[in-house]
């Protein structure tokens, strides 16, 4: 079987990495486009097979089932070690699932230097996959950077007028965060037990979970790691790069950023922050949750008055991510399970939302909300998609995010009733901004700009149908995903509580 030579996590890395490098050499724009699509489909196939073959329910040792480790730098205790737990499976699947849809949805877009563009896209996929599979802190950091660099280039070279300025801001934010984390990693490393005779310390995840850190050390280390992850999410008030970058960036890069890279921050908090600094978690949980809840209300308010559709999506995302950040730190099973589920759901929903925004901009030439209107007359199919996606974003029952938001709010309620009562105001605010947007874009009469709107093409219809079906299936029957990831929740909670 496949696994004899390559484990799934490795393949998920190698396919985008190798094809990404190869793509540079394909000068023909059409060919490289097709090449990237095929590569991403191959990754998706591997990801689906890995999901089918891994029967997590009957293998409690699942974490090591797909784990593989090569000697890398033995003298410092770092190894090329990758593995997948339930959450990892879910996020690698989301990554593998998103790229083909992104490529297909933007297939008609022409890019200058297409070979570089698609090479960077595929490399970013490799980086993101790496973050989700890494079981070694140095490797994790390596992939963290590998994922960011292509995105800097993608955002600064393809996009709108102020893209350089926006990317610079993004770069400063994330690079500062990354460096702080690097300092943190090295410090923790120096306090890890030795796992082999080659070196006194180890970078492995397991060693990090067992590092002997005094509560006073945890107090500041916590913030070093937190900074890197919180910037990505972003946790209020570290968010100001996001609306700017989303507004100025090109669609595929923004889809990757908001659908996947944001999840790197959430993932990092769950896997590389919570279990390593349990004492600090306990101490700072309230502070982080309060900041996150401020973020929900704050972003929801601002989303209402956005005139640019791209900025609008950015603010809705900040609001949703606020809830996720809060639910991480409640550190109970309902909250964590909700966050993990929401990572998948938010990834799907926001990707769908971006695709619709892209279609609207392409078909009408504008994306200013006030200049749109009446699109439901011209394009009823697009209207139907947008309505479903909008309601998925406000977590209507039977759409995917209802279940995850339900679990997150429930977790928050368990932790502290009053937090839940304030945070849940978000469900009203989200319906206010979402329905206002839908109304202004789709309903009312046609104007001179929307009069000329083109109908949707078949490719867009297929992509959006896939996404809408996913939204409904996950909303009606979420149990398989919960089943897949509940082991992760148990593991994380165990290390948070025991130490």
């Amino acid at each position, binding site marked *: 079987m496949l696994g004899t030579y390559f484990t799934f996590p490795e393949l998920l890395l190698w396919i985008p990495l190798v094809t990404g490098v190869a793509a540079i050499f394909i000068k023909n724009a059409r060919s490289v486009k097709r090449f990237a699509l095929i590569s991403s489909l191959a990754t998706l196939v591997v990801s689906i097979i890995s999901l089918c073959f891994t029967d997590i329910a009957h293998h409690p040792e699942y974490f090591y089932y797909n784990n593989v480790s090569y000697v890398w730098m033995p003298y410092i205790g770092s190894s090329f070690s990758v593995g997948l737990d339930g959450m990892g499976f879910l996020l690698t699947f989301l990554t593998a699932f998103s790229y083909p849809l992104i490529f297909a949805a933007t297939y008609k877009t022409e890019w200058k230097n297409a070979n570089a563009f698609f090479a960077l896209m595929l490399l970013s996929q490799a980086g993101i996959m790496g973050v989700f599979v890494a079981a070694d802190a140095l490797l994790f950091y390596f992939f963290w950077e590998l994922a960011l*660099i292509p995105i800097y*280039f993608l955002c600064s070279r393809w996009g709108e007028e102020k893209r350089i300025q926006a990317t610079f801001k993004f770069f400063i934010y994330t690079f500062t965060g990354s460096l702080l984390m690097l300092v943190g990693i090295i410090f923790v490393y120096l306090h890890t037990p030795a796992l082999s005779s080659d070196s006194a310390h180890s970078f492995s995840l397991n060693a990090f979970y067992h590092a002997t850190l005094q509560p006073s050390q945890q107090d500041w280390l916590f913030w070093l790691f937190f900074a890197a992850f919180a910037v990505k999410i972003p946790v209020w008030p570290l968010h100001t790069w996001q609306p700017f970058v989303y507004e100025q960036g090109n669609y595929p890069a923004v889809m990757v950023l908001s659908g996947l890279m944001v999840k790197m921050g959430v993932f990092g908090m769950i896997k590389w922050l919570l279990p390593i600094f349990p004492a600090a978690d306990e101490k700072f949980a309230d502070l982080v949750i309060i900041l996150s809840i401020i973020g929900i209300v704050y972003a929801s308010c*601002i989303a209402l*008055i956005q005139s640019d559709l791209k900025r609008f999506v950015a603010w809705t995302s900040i609001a949703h991510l606020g809830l996720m950040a809060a639910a991480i730190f409640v550190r109970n099973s309902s909250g964590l399970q909700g966050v993990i589920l929401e990572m998948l759901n938010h990834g799907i929903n926001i990707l769908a939302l971006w695709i619709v925004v892209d279609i609207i901009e392409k078909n009408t030439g504008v994306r200013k909300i006030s200049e749109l209107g009446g699109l439901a007359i011209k394009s009823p199919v697009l209207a139907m998609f947008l309505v479903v996606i909008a309601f998925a974003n406000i977590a*209507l029952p039977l759409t995917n995010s209802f279940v995850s938001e339900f679990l997150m709010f429930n977790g928050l309620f368990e932790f502290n009733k009053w937090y839940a009562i304030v945070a849940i105001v978000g469900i*009203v605010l989200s319906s206010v901004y979402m329905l206002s947007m839908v109304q202004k874009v789709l*309903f009312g009469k046609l104007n001179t700009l929307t009069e000329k709107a083109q109908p949707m093409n078949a490719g867009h219809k297929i992509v959006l149908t896939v996404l809408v079906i996913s939204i409904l299936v996950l909303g009606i*029957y979420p149990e398989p995903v919960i089943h897949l990831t*509940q082991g992760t929740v148990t593991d994380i909670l165990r290390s948070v509580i025991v130490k």
Partner: protein
Amino acid sequence: MNAIQLIYLVPLLPLIGFLINGLGRKSLSKTLIGIIGSGVIFISFCISVFIFLAVSKEGFTVQNIHYFDFIKFEKLHIPFEFQLDQLTAVFLLIITGVGFLIHVYSTGYMKEETPEGFGRYFSFLNLFVFFMLLLVLGGNYVIMYIGWEGISLCSYLLIGFWFKDHENNDAGKKSFIMNRIGDIGFLLAIFWLLSLFGTVSYHDLYNSQNGFISLITNVNTTDLVGISLLFFLGATAKSAQIPLYTWLPDAMAGPTPVSALIHAATMVTAGVYLVARSNILYSLAPATMTVVAVIGLATAIFAAVIALKQNDIKKVLAYSTVSQLGYMFLGLGVGAYSAAVFHVMTHAFFKGLLFLAAGSVIHAMAGEQDITKMGGLGKKMKVTYITFLIACIAIAGIPPFSGFFSKDEILNAAFASNPLLYALGLGGALLTAFYMFRLLALTFAGKFRGTPEQEHHLHESPSSMTVPLVILGVLSAIGGFVGIPEVLVGNGNKIGDFLSPVFAHSASILGGHQNPHQTEIILMGVTAILSIIISLWAWKKYKGKTAFAPEANTLARVIKNKFYVDEIYDFIFVKPYRSLAGFLNNIIDKKGIDGVVNGVGRSVNYGSRQLRLLQSGQVGSYLLLMVIGMLLLFIIQLFTK
């Protein structure tokens, strides 16, 4: 075969209808769409009848049907399950029965729509019925919540059905948002239940020893009052009670059959269902019961007062609905659960009928809704007129029509609880009689006050519309006989007896507060006689009215303007919220937070220099080199080991 085994078909068929009509709206003919849309509801109705018969059999016990696990991990277990008992059976009949009639009516009413719009309309209507059925069939609060929000969605979609007009869209949006405010209460109550009992299944909560029964000795604890009040917050939004009622009058922007089905007969009674379903919880929290009764009564009177001065035929009916729902909550609040459900049923008949008849009028008047421009329609529209009259008699509480019995039962229970509640309730009932007969007189009696073209256009509606009117007319007239008070006919209160198992626990908690028979008969007589007098007075006062002067006194103007509640809400909530959003965006975010960030950037004097570096790719290439270096390191290690 046992009909109960087919229970999943009851909601599934409307869902299938939704899918067929929704996806096939471009290719199907209007006739076919109408047949599919109404047909699925009719089959659901037939199954519901058989289920009802099965439930009424001797020895029926509550059925729990488990389909699959919706959410399950660790101790949290929320199955997708149905529960069938007497309460559900009654609601199934109301929803599918009245629902079917309104679907048939719609095939006539919506004839002018394009095939695409026609298909969209019927698919939404089917989807609504699906969610409504899910709401009453669900075996736990989460499944109920799915239906609960689903009907909000359909209400939103159908109010804004004619989406080219932003007034309709605003009304739809308002309905959804106000309902969401209530949803907060519903959700928090669910979380509270989960933290307390670890389950939200009715069976575990109400029929097992670990559920609410275990709390029976300590009533009015924070938990009980808190949970019941939160659920009630949900109910005030869905059932349009103070303070969250203002969406319902606006919801009249939707097509009239939608108002009949959603905003009169079914959706708005979901709040009543919620409280009735949770009756044990409420009975254990007398403090909440008082709140429910007071809010219900206040809404009943307040909305009735507003209805006195409205001139839009649908607005009068909308406020009337708000008011009648208030009576249902009054009934719930004084522990007369089955009376409230009985009123849900009779109200579905007569208010559904009033809206459909109003639709027939609006149809004949080519869209005109202002009753000051109508008059004398009775001559041209006999069926509409007579059925409207029947409904007016029913809602005014004149015996022996249906509304009399249900309202009487509520008022009677209110008297037993506190005579003041009765007195105020009676006042509201008389206001109801007055505004309804005012409406009737202005619309159907006297001379026509519209334009000659309108007069020429007047016609009776087609039979697809009048047949449902006649059926509902018959039901409004005789529907009350299933609940004849015991004092008049022994064993006459069939519906009360039928529902009694559902409310048995509550009855034992609350204890029986019965009026003496004499008192009951006197009250009944007083209500009936006063209602007749007021109705006749209103009819006489308005039947010959031709001139409509603007309201002269201040109070009348305030009432006509609905006490300016919308304006007050706008001033207190909407405007400040928008200003806050602007303030956060322009001042706090751009100047404050981002200002600090940019300031930090500038002060290190990094900006311009790094910007150039990045543009030329130097920073990037540095990083890229770092990554490539690590990659090489790894590859070397891999192959030299």
